[in-house]
């Protein structure tokens, strides 16, 4: 997890949010997930590094992870 950046790195966070919201709103509901997945795949390829992507996956899944029995 030490490799994960959680400090701000986005060049323009407000623009990022606005564009993402607007683009997804312009897409019909059944395709919104497809848009998000295409975006995920493109961004993952930009990141490239396995350790960072895995760390992001674990962090994203943390609230949903099943606790051990």
């Amino acid at each position: 997890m030490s490799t994960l950046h959680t400090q701000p790195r986005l060049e323009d966070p407000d623009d990022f949010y606005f564009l993402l919201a607007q683009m997804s709103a312009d897409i019909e509901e059944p395709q919104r997930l497809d848009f998000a997945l295409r975006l995920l795949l493109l961004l993952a390829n930009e990141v490239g590094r396995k350790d960072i992507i895995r760390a992001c996956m674990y962090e994203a899944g943390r609230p949903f992870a099943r606790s051990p029995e």
Partner: protein
Amino acid sequence: VTRSPRLTPSGYELPTFEPVVPAAVNRQSPERRTIVIVGGGLTGLSLAADLSSRGVDAVLLDDDVTVGVRGASSRGMVYAQKTLEIMARLGVYERIREKGVTWSVGRTLSGTDIVYEFDRTAETVSLQPPFINIQQFYVEWYLVDRIRELGAVQLRWANRVTNLQLNDDSVLLTVETEGGPYKLEAQWVIDATGANSPFRDSAGVSVESSHAVDHWCICDVRFAKALPAERWTWVDAPFNNGRAVWQHKMADDVWRLDYQLGPDADPVTAADPATAHDRVRAHLGPDVEFELVWVGPWKYRSQLARTFVQGRYLLMGDAAHVKSPFGARGGNSGVQDADNLGWKLGAVVKGIAPLSLISSYNEERREAAAENIKVTEQTARFLAPQTEFELRLRRAIVGLARHHAFARSLVNTGRLSVPNFYASSSIRGPRGGYCLPNIALTNADGRRTSLAALAHSCGEKPLVLYRPQRGEVGVPVHLTSECAASSVSLLRLRGHDEQGDSNSITDDKSDLLRLTSASPGEAIVVRPDLYCADVVSVAHIGFALRRTIGMAQAPRS
């Protein structure tokens, strides 16, 4: 259009062999042998041919009298480069090449669009092609002929092992024949009896296994329609209800067509000739005359034996590891098991190497099997999405793949068999553990040779290739004396424009130097199975040679 499908499992005339009743039948004392291989499938026969080529005495027992599984059963059909290189060394490659279909191009389709393709010709540096497709029983047949020609290994057909007893330094087998039973005591027994080995339990070797739900149905079909001799895979074929399909040509104008079935498919109905006929008709179109040669359902399955070496009882091929057929990693890895074990067994029984060399077979081939299982499970997951999300994720990948190279790398319809890296091997050095291809080389007298031919001439010992310093004449005395002390062959790698003596060799395209990154003044240690054991400076050659044959512990850290 014929509506009376004809299943012709007898489309092939397989050779049958005479049942053998050995002299030991009904004798009180057991027959004693050094090495006994149980099971005459692809892996067992490969080891028998390997040992035979080394002049090592061994016996192979098979409960049947033919090759193939009682009829023209479709098993392996894609033979990858490493297997072809091994078959070249064993002397059956030319027959495989003449009979089979040589290919290098693969295409993956989604619907009717090609979303991924490869051509392995450009990147290959081996004397053997990337792939040849041929029915497995042909390869087995050629191996049988070769083993008989070589003579050192006895093939005993219709010899069924009914009991196996593991002792401290031997294994005792009870064998049933047409003439009655006999006992056979061997220093080494190799279990090559396949996925349902009846001996693992009595030898105390447990198996980790996993099963999944996805079902498929193979239809081997003979037809004359001119389709390219390429590997075509559909992620979602319109003619198979949006499920995956494989299309691949083998010998005799027979095609391997493999269809993914629905989650609720009944394997018995799926293999029904009428159902199979309709499926193939939908695939090939209304105008193509075809004949069903063989139909058989299968499902995902993986198995891994806890160890491949239990005292004097060794496991190889499907008896040791089972995986789904994606990427042709079953048969090809079985042949590599044989290739790995052959020289080690030879070295041990000839007294060249200590017993402990055999444990490196377990380290290396079990690691390879675990890797192959992981790779095929990843393919299986891509081909059978478990949730709506996965299905949508895969659709996004396929959509991006039409325009972007990065997404094509995510399309996974099977990663074809390649020689594995042996990370956990105790007989490799820090710069070894990977396999070298069968590179073309030129002898000092201008004759063409190859890395496989050179390695074969070294028997069970490694080969040392020295890269001289610029302007250096001959080879360092320390290197010569260390190699001589171990009776190991030493060759000097020579540049194109350089004069060479009889102990020099030319690496025509510098493939060897590129692949090993050997610097001037360094020596490459090549194993009999063409794995690079290490690349070392002259001072370290003695240790490297001892380690390669299991005579040294891991290097001091």
